[in-house]
């Protein structure tokens, strides 16, 4: 992890936003030094590009039915065969990537909107707010993620939006924990006391002095949660509680494949492999990032 140590100790005042800005390329570079992380990042970029450019790259209209050609095998015409309505599976996998990638992003936005401000405030100010928020997050974490999501969907009704918001709320205590812990460490720094002494508002201290310095652990958590969110959305869609037809995500495609399993046993492979590879990519990236952050701290 020697690559992380690029900014010499004299560069900038320790812990100022300036230093954080300089350390970031070092962190990224060290993270991408392994071949696995490069492969994961390249895969994700490619996948995102495919999702955005779906109308240009998909060989067929994902919803065009051909009922005389159901469950066709692989061919030049249909590289991954066709599904129960004779639709081109390859095109559907590419189009479904849009929802499968967008859903985790929205869940994370919801989770961060709740968890990050609460964690920042609790970590810096402690007191009653910290006590209450910490107890609440303990409580939420004692409910299995998917069970908690079910409870929220029961109240709000099954839909993709509900599922994404539910997963986001489930994430909030995880993000709260990470942000609170990191903020408590930063709050001990002299520059925080200095900022308070010159009368900076809590809002300013949190945004300008704390947030840039807890970016690394937050980024690790967010990357790992992306993979988890994708799995959670797929699970809920598989149960029929997420994406509703005609929209499709990889999870809902698997549900359809499951329902036709006796007719076409191998149809569970394409969307399943897509989920596996994408979650794997997020996890590998998150793990490497965590190693890079830990290496940065150890120096």
């Amino acid at each position: 992890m020697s690559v992380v140590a690029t900014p010499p100790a004299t560069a900038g005042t320790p812990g100022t936003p300036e230093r954080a800005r300089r350390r970031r390329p070092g962190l990224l570079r060290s993270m991408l030094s392994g071949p696995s992380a490069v492969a994961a990042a390249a895969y994700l970029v490619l996948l995102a590009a495919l999702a955005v450019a779906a109308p240009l790259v998909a060989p067929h209209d994902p919803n065009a039915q051909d009922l005389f050609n159901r469950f066709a095998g692989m061919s030049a015409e249909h590289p991954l065969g066709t599904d129960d309505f004779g639709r081109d599976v390859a095109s559907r996998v590419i189009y479904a990537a849009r929802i499968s990638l967008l859903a985790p992003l929205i869940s994370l936005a919801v989770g961060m909107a709740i968890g990050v401000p609460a964690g920042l405030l609790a970590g810096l100010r402690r007191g009653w707010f910290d006590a209450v928020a910490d107890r609440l997050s303990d409580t939420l974490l004692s409910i299995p993620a998917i069970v908690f999501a079910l409870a929220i969907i029961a109240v709000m009704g099954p839909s993709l939006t509900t599922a994404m918001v539910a997963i986001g709320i489930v994430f909030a205590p995880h993000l709260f924990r990470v942000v609170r812990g990191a903020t408590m460490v930063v709050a001990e720094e002299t520059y925080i006391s200095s900022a308070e002494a010159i009368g900076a508002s809590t809002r300013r201290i949190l945004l300008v002095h704390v947030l840039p310095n807890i970016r690394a652990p937050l980024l690790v958590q967010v990357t790992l949660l992306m993979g988890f969110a994708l799995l959670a959305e797929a699970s809920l869609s598989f149960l029929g509680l997420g994406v509703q037809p005609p929209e499709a995500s990889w999870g809902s495609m698997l549900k359809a494949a499951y329902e036709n399993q006796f007719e076409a046993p191998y149809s569970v492979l394409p969307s399943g492999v897509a989920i596996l590879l994408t979650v794997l990519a997020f996890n590998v990236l998150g793990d490497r990032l965590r190693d890079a952050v830990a290496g940065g701290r150890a120096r």
Partner: protein
Amino acid sequence: MNLARLLRRLASAVLVIWLVHLLTFLLIRLVPGDPAQLLAGERATPDEVLRIREQLGLEDPVLLQYARSLGGLPRGDLGESMFSGLPVGRLLADAAPATLSVALMALLFAAVFGVGAGVLAGLRQGGWTDRVVSTIATVGIAMPSFWIGLVLVTFFALVNPWLPATGYAPLGEGVGTWFRHLVLPAVTLGVAVAAEIARHTRGGVADVLAKPYIRTARARGASGSRLVRGHVLRNAAIPVVTVLGLQTGKLLGGTVVVEAVFGISGLGTLAVNSVLERDYPVLQGFVIFAAVVVVTANLLVDTAYGRINPKVRTA
């Protein structure tokens, strides 16, 4: 663990359960709009809405509703299903054996394979065993459990008809039948947990091997299985037990999906159906049940620490 600490942990566990109950009570009442209307759905007639309101006692003052709901909790009274009218406690008790069988079998599978593979990988760091185990573990965590289930069913029940593809057989039908029905669901549910345990076991063993007391033990002539059993495993067990505790919730949540794949009518199926039927009391009961299981598992893990590692006893 001394008595004072045990009591403190118990009190904290009870507090968490109480908060989970409060949360599920508030969840349906704090959402904007009329809870009865919400549960009845958009196409409900006014009569249906009124019926639901009466069933849930929503006409009464909120504090009275709360007192009634909380009062039943210690007795295991979780209200009645809005769909079937049966007590929620009984529905949960009827569904629990299938779920617990699958979850415990999965835990057993995960512990045996996870610890075994993790120890092997940790003892041979950098070798090919380590690389294979680490790769399988990384992939195992990334696989959606229901997909593992679908693939297993495809190969072990459809292509090769060796094991039943669906259903649960109660123990009353014979241990063999019970076990054969459990294999695929338990493996499906256990893979991710086994992978997680393997990673932590490997890390724990690797950490312990780097400790000076291992060098001391080696210098004194301890080697092979004696060293591993007497020094490595005992010390590496602490992170592993922690992970086992943390995985309880994952197993319980995972059964929701796995039961759907294998058509097992356990707690997960009950929960998914109650979401689709907007049967909130049943779902509320399931959430509380899940929290009780998770909190109990954490309590057990805490007491296990003291047994494994005397250093923690005084902490």
